[in-house]
């Protein structure tokens, strides 16, 4: 089993599937937990994303794609998904794409992030 490491979050085994389309993998991983962050262990903006969610009292599940053997495919797929400047960090809440860090920030500022988290069961009050 291949364990993903994350900062302060639970470790999740990454199933090695055969010839799975990266997009499908992403969708499957995103749907598995309330809050999912695709990250890179060396990326500082990913650290920002993690810190933000932790400060909200949420424990996100983190996939470090630089530690995935097919991380490059994932990276390209993520970039295609939200068309942002960088593939990571990319955030999913309740299985739905929120986006890159700017979308997350915007969502928090306009007050929509917390309700979304509650809806997904990641936050209680």
């Amino acid at each position, binding site marked *: 089993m291949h364990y993903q490491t994350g900062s302060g979050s639970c470790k999740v085994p990454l199933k090695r599937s055969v010839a799975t389309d990266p997009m499908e993998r992403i969708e499957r991983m995103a749907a598995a937990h309330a809050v999912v962050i695709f990250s890179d262990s060396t990326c*500082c903006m990913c650290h920002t*994303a993690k*810190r933000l969610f932790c*400060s909200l009292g949420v424990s996100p599940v983190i996939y470090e794609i630089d530690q995935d053997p097919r991380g490059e495919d994932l990276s390209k797929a993520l970039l295609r998904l939200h068309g942002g400047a*960088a593939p990571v960090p990319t955030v999913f809440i309740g299985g739905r794409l929120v986006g890159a860090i700017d979308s997350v920030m915007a969502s928090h500022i*306009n*007050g929509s992030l917390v309700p979304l988290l509650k809806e997904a069961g990641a936050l209680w009050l």
Partner: protein
Amino acid sequence: MASHRVGEPAALSDSGAPHHHHHHIPYAVPYMLHHPTNSNFINQEGPAFDFGELEEAIILQGVKINNDDKKQHLYTAIRPAATLDMFPSWPMRFHQHTTRGSSKSGEESTDSGSAVNTLSNTPESPSDHRQPPPPPPQMDAAGGIDSPRMSGSQSQPPAKPAPEKTLRRLAQNREAARKSRLRKKAYVQQLESSRIRLAQLEQDLQRARSQGLFLGGGGAASGSISSGGAIFDMEYSRWLDDDHRHISELRTALQAHLSDGDLRVIVDGYIAHYDEVFSLKGAAAKSDVFHLITGMWTTPAERCFLWMGGFRPSDLIKMLIPQLDPLTEQQFMGICSLQHSSQQAEEALSQGLDQLQQSLVDTIANGSVNDSMHHMAIALGKLANLEGFVRQADNLRQQTLHQLHRLLTIRQAARCFLVIGEYYGRLRALSSLWASRPRESMIAEDNSCQTTSDLQMVQASQNQFSNF
């Protein structure tokens, strides 16, 4: 005593042509007239001089002040009122010894007795004012010294005593006015030098454009500012002018009680104006992130409170809350929540930036001699992430402003943005005032006058801002 020091109005007319005296030395310091060689020490460092008595004498005589802008004033630091015809009773020969006339009266404070208002229109030059006033011209001693000389001249009736308090006040006013003029001068000079710098920047920009440097994204032009930075500075300077215009428009619109529809247009315009600066900063971050993040594009006071290349949104909201009264309960909750969210986001970004810095430090510190270039390359790669942080910080600022717009009614929003515009305008003005504040060496005496002048200066700049 005055009679020993001061000339006579009667003597003025008696002498027939007081106007001709302009070209000669003032009588201000009679002792000096007899010792022209001592004129040197006027220009040297000397003790502070109290003009109280001198001015008292002038007022007593109600002497009309002449202007003389042709000659370098020997006693330039002497307060303006003390000019030529003060001692018209002095025989001509004394005047001939001296070569310079009173000139640097500048704009005299009209607060002093009308009789002693100077007519001089000579602009004061800073160098004159930096000359310390001449040492006390032995005025008291002059009483004794002068009288023998005076005895040969026209007789002088005794001076009428004027109230001590008034004279002192007048003297203080004069001093305050002088200091105020000094500060104004320093401020104007600063503006001038900024103007010159702006012209230089525009020149740099022209040069850089013609050489296509800025297209390379960071090729630094010669000089301390990169072309990317120079371009941004220019665009930002234009944005500031626009900002001033928008603020005036907002202010006028609020005072004119325009309809909500009209106000909306203006407020939307202001939001768009801010969107524009964030767009400019985004482009600048690509070409010269250091210029942005170190705040070289801001004024010193703004730079002092800089957070990640700009203002800290939660601080802005904190400032705004009391200014936005009255707010509904819901609005108040919304804005407090906005402040809180912004703080969380700022904290997360700051932590991310800290991690970047730590990572950079590790890379640079651990580069060995052999593969230092390799480590440098890695460090460069990490540095590139700075742009992302500045961009996200600007994004946060932009989102905060938009959210404020959403939370408030149109009239409240108009007031809110007016407050924001004026706040930063004042912060910028503070920088200028600070830069032109009087330093120790420029203050001759009487610090009690200083506060008044400072207030006058601040009030002058505040007059362009409305009350919140």
